[in-house]
């Protein structure tokens, strides 16, 4: 009765989801899905057998209790029969383990296939509570630096290099692949080969301090044309302010504390401590997936970041409302 519920609930729970290990959207996650189904079946059967054995034991006990003689029965001759059953049961377990181990190795080998020359090269550097994402390119002047977002071309492998600036984090987009830790002092690697376009979400999966819960990443898989268009847009420098209010906003950005930590390519601001804001408005979320990206939230985030993400390294900035409005207007123009 138990395993039936087990798989029923899973189906009921729905395998659809933006951050769902059972909603396979890439070679890697579907390969892992195969292991999952194998495990589910084999373990389900073993569990069923165990529960049947338990059921049989309880049923026999109730029947024997009815016979109601309470003598402490010596070990009956029947044990020899059960010893054979024990041997069979052990053999069954060993067989089950061989099947599972074999299935797991085969899938592991499939995942560990070699380097694909035409793979997109991406380097993700994790910091305390946000992601820096760099799209590397043989021509260095074509590199793209963005934050908290991953854009991938469909049907083309992406080779991700994972590094950390401070503590151990773990890069995990369940719909695309398993997780790999980002450990300071070494580089780990992962390959993603998306097979479906769409938007997913990944989240840090290794406890990394105060805002571990709010360290997410939006993942968008484009078709080839969409990806090329996105790349071209990202390579462009930041839009120059086209209205006086935005010019004043840019002035506020350059002269106040923002430029010490953030970069807007095309202006003098190139601080590397905080995320790159060159194309901030083109992103789907704010503060590593913690907040929706709109003017009101951005204003609140700039003046009181600790209200939303207590412990974040973004400091509170004391700006009069008009200058704050101009700044937000300028930042929201950076598509």
């Amino acid at each position: 009765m138990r395993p039936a519920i087990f798989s029923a609930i899973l189906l009921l729970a729905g395998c659809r989801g933006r951050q769902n290990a059972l909603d396979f959207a890439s070679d890697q996650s579907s390969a892992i899905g195969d292991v999952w189904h194998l495990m589910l079946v084999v373990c389900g059967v073993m569990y069923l057998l165990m529960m049947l054995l338990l059921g049989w034991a309880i049923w026999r006990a109730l029947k024997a209790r009815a016979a109601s003689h309470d003598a402490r029965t010596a070990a009956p001759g029947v044990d020899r029969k059960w010893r054979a059953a024990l041997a069979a049961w052990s053999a069954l377990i060993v067989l089950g383990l061989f099947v599972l181990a074999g299935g797991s190795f085969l899938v592991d080998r499939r995942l560990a296939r070699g380097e694909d020359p035409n793979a997109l090269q991406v380097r993700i550097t994790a910091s305390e509570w946000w992601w820096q994402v760099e799209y590397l390119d043989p021509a260095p002047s074509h590199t793209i630096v963005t934050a908290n977002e991953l854009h991938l071309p469909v049907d083309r492998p992406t080779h991700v290099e994972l590094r950390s600036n401070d503590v151990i984090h773990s890069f995990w987009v369940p719909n695309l692949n398993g997780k790999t830790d980002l450990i300071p002092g070494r580089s780990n690697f992962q390959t993603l080969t998306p097979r479906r376009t769409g938007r997913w979400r990944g989240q840090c999966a290794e406890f990394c301090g105060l805002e571990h819960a709010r360290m997410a990443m939006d993942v968008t898989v484009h078709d080839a044309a969409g990806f090329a268009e996105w790349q071209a847009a990202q390579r462009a420098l930041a839009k120059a302010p086209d209205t006086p209010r935005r010019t004043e906003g840019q002035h506020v950005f350059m002269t106040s504390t923002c430029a010490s930590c953030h970069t807007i390519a095309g202006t003098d601001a190139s601080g590397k401590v905080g995320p790159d804001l060159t194309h901030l408005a083109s992103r789907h979320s704010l503060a590593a997936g913690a907040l929706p990206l709109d003017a009101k939230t951005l204003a609140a985030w700039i003046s009181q970041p600790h209200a939303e993400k207590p412990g974040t390294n973004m400091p509170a900035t004391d700006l009069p409302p008009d200058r704050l409005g101009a700044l937000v207007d300028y930042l929201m123009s950076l598509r």
Partner: protein
Amino acid sequence: MNTARELDATWADAPGWRGWIATVDHKRIGRRYLVTAFVFFIMGGILALVMRTQLAYPNGHVVGPDRYNQLFSMHGSSMMFLFAVPVMEAVAVYIVPLMCGTRNIAFPRLNAFSYWIYLFGGIMIYAAFFLNVGPETGWFSYVPLAGPQFSPGKRTDFWAQMITFTEVAALAVAIELIVTILKMRAPGMTLARMPLFLWSMLVTSFMVVFAMPAVMLASSFLIMDRLVGTHYYNAAEGGDPLLWQHLFWFFGHPEVYIIFLPALGMVSSITQTFARRPVFGRLALVVSLVATGFLAFGLWVHHMFATGLPRMGNSFYTAASMMIALPSGVQIFCWMVTLGTGRPKFSTPLLFVIGFFITFVLGGLTGVMQASVPLDLQLHDTYFVVAHFHYVLIGGSVFPLFGAFFYWFPKFTGKALNETAGKWTFWLFFTGFNVTFFPMHIAGLQGMPRRVYTYPGDMGWGLWNLMSTAGSYLIAISMLVFIVNVVRTLRSRETAAENPWDAPDLEWAAASPPAKYNFAAVPVVTSDTPLWTERDALGALSGLRDDRPEVLITSAVEAAPQIRWGMPSPSVWPLVTALGLTVMFVWSIFTPWGIVWGAIPFAIGATVWFWPKRSQPGLESES
């Protein structure tokens, strides 16, 4: 019966609190251990309730991130270090000498010392927690988050020192148990006839001896990194954050088997007693216990599949992690056959064992699932893992523990716990447990990572978290029922029979609660179920003096009598030594000189503790 009065006088403690703090009687210390461990279990449970209340709804504001991080760190640390291992050792401290048929545990003063160190460790960490200096980086505190730069203040230092406290206590008890089981068994109790609970405690103790030093080394390295700026875990200067993970998990995985194996011993005892027949496949069970003990040391890297270690290495650990399913499967099979071919009586202890079968097997199978490297990359550090280890820890250890508590309560107190209240406790606990932890499998598969103080509303995790919170309150209610049952039973006057369950093991040959000297005469055993085969004709061996505390030392394999051994008298110095060591440990959190100056009170206490007794009454006249 002047020997009884004589023995009573010889083994008695001083009256009042002076005797209370100086006792070396394994039963008084065992009871204290059990009560203290249970208090920490309740406090850990309350912490879990607050966590579940915070996670009941998305974007909850019950507690902030800093408080929540301290909550889950304290919950994990107190459950693993202050409850699970000590409670199993507490039961063993009480039952093993009785089951072996001897009068006291080996090294009784070390036993007292280990309790005080364990108590002071628990007090220190909870005092720190209430002073906002509690641990905040989880029960396994990965560096560099737990390192000097990313964990400011003294929070992680207190956590690391708490590990030193509890490991010293655990190692001490492990040594005592190994010596008691191997050298102080009743004559005739050969290894082949030794009860399964003793086997499981023997294997557990050896695992403690081999596993604990790894984590004490790791936590000492961490304290040195944080206090005097060494570079063990500094990736830049040649140290390595993974050194911490290897050292910790080399201890970590055997730790969870240290918690689990005693439970297997308890299940064997309860199943055998309530199935009304000797356990089926005794040899298979013993071999499985020993196999589990060895295998536990070979699979710690399955906690580190996501750290980017070479894939070939990981595959070996997949195989090792899967192999451990074999001994567990064999044991479950043997117990079920024992039940099926006996005439089981479904009282509370057996109910908890049935609960154990249902939950532990599910937890074991999800464990086998996570042994696969690719699958573990999806499941690691998600709520799926939280579900798994609660199934194997609560299902695998706490259920048998409660079963054993109901089973041995008459032996501890002479009074049997109320059966209906017991059944209520079980069904509330079992249902609450499954309602709490089964939805976590689904939340984990849906991408909810571990240790998040909150989660967004649009991820579809809300329903599962709400169910988990409801279930956790159910478990709390079951605990209340249990506490009320214990209190009412202790207050009531009607007592239970000496062997209410008609159990076969030697501990039931002594009175309930046993006299200070356990057995007037050393029992002699001729079979593996002594009270069933030689019920009244239990042989007895005389010759131990009754005017000084003496125990019989027997050979390891055949349990043939060898020598009579004088046991140390009650003394307050183990407590003083423990206080000295506490001063040294706490002081060395703040300055390395604390080790130097703190060693003085410890040395004084230890010297007086081990000071040889000059005058042995009547020893000289011995031929």
